[in-house]
């Protein structure tokens, strides 16, 4: 399911003295099956853009086309439910939204709300708990007895149980420890690969953008200022720094090596790419060279 923005602008509290530009003239398509990262500093409009992906916000002008549904300022709030099922939204600190007495009931809540019969919803809960890497034994536990990382997995399982085709993630690893972050990012990569979910990720972690995304949108002051592959985006370190955006650690290291005299045809984005690019420029113990 493609999501297309056509000249979308959004004004907060339009018509009041507090009116503020949220989005300005955004035109872009998020393609079915892609893994798109949205970057930009705090206040750049990333979250406002996200909320248009399932019509939580409607454009002040322009059109958002989600699959075969067109959303404009005129769209009625009725009949938006199917969109909310198709585009699953994992908010920041999603564990704060857990409320049920057991993990099973919390996960089953979403599908039941969308009219899935109880037995089917419960089966989905069991299936999703395994999918997010939790033991089936947590199903009967209170979500509030779990660790923070486990609670977040339950919240994500609840979104997956609605069987969306697009998964929207707003800084899903914030506040997790490094092992938790790694596991969480690998889970999304697996869902993207195996369940063919379209993934939209808002993040400040440039390493994650380099490692996982195939497309990047850069936001600044409510405008979409750059789009491209991670390679295209990170090829311009001067521009990124000027826009208060970081570089992947690999790229920073490659630049330090370059200043020292090493040569790279293009700046590598991942550790293995950097190691491979360095290899011909370093002495290697006899018989150990890979290629």
């Amino acid at each position, binding site marked *: 399911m493609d999501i297309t923005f056509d000249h979308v602008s959004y004004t907060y509290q339009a018509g009041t003295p507090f009116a503020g530009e949220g989005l300005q003239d955004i035109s872009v398509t998020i393609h079915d099956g892609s893994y798109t990262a949205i970057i930009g500093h705090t206040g750049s409009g990333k979250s406002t853009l996200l909320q248009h992906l399932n019509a939580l916000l409607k454009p002040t002008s322009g059109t958002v086309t989600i699959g075969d549904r067109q959303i404009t300022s005129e769209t009625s709030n009725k009949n938006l439910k199917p969109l909310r099922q198709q585009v699953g939204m994992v908010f920041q600190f999603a564990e704060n939204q857990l409320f049920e007495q057991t993990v099973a009931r919390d996960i089953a809540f979403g599908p039941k709300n969308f009219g899935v019969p109880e037995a089917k919803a419960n089966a989905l809960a069991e299936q999703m708990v395994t999918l997010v890497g939790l033991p089936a034994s947590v199903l009967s536990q209170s979500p509030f007895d779990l660790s923070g990382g486990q609670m977040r997995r339950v919240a994500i399982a609840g979104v997956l149980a609605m069987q969306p085709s697009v998964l929207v993630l707003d800084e899903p690893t914030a506040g997790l*420890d490094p092992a938790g972050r790694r596991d969480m990012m690998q889970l999304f990569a697996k869902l993207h690969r195996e369940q063919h979910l379209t993934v939209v990720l808002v993040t400040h972690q440039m390493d994650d953008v380099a490692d996982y995304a195939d497309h990047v949108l850069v936001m600044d002051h409510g405008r979409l200022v750059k789009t491209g592959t991670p390679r295209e985006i990170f090829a311009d370190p001067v521009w990124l720094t000027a826009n208060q955006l970081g570089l992947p650690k690999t790229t920073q290291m490659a630049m330090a090596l370059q200043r020292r005299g090493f040569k790279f045809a293009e700046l590598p984005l991942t550790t293995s790419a950097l190691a491979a690019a360095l290899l011909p420029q370093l002495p290697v113990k006899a018989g150990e060279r*890979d290629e």
Partner: protein
Amino acid sequence: MTQAIEIAHLNYQYPDTPRPALRDVSLSVASGEWVAIIGHNGSGKSTLAKNINGLLAPGSGTVTVGGELLTEESVWDIRAKVGIVFQNPDNQFVGATVADDVAFGLENRGMPRPEMIKRVDSALAAVNMTEFATREPARLSGGQKQRVAIAGIVAQTPDIIILDEATSMLDPAGRQEILSLIRELRAARPLTVVSITHDIDEAALADRIVLLNDGEIVETGTPAEIFRHGEELIDLGLDVPYAGRLKAALAQRGVAVPAAYLDAEGLVDYLWTLHSTM
């Protein structure tokens, strides 16, 4: 050197839990030292912090802060010496304006108004938030909020500041902002820092790293010593320093790399020297 914090054989167990959160923890922090405490979630780091200023009372063992034994009687004295900055900036505001919020702790201690105004002004200046004095805390960015929280602590001139994952909810710019602020504060006057963290850059700033696992201290060392763990660090609750990651990738491809820890600059130097031998 005098000890800022002296913890001896501390045990702590939360009510209705099967296992102790801290087991026989002994740790001395010298006055003016910066100690980072690392460990994965649930390893007992925050429990330890809360025992240092008496938010939790030890099951057994002792905590001595600035030479004073922590007891029910001394707890208020000790809290005046130890300020804690918590993880979530939104959970620690009480004032309607930034200045009110910074004044809250001082008011609580019954400080005369003229002295209080002076302290609030200088604390806000120290964290570069003077121009925000009359603003509403809720409308600040995450980094600014943590600055105000730190100003509230600075105003009380504590000898010890505990950062309990104080940068983990901030974006990279906000994180840098807070870390440079702590460095500036330490340059201005002696301040002991205990930082509980998962952030490799924050841990690297410490004089010493203490590694907790399942409520026990399993290792202490300089950042260079601890970072030698390489890929294992991630299971110990810390990220792997990038230089370590690249070193491992090169070693796998048959490049001779040293076993000792190198920071990024050190690795660049080493590789360039190696390249020059070709």
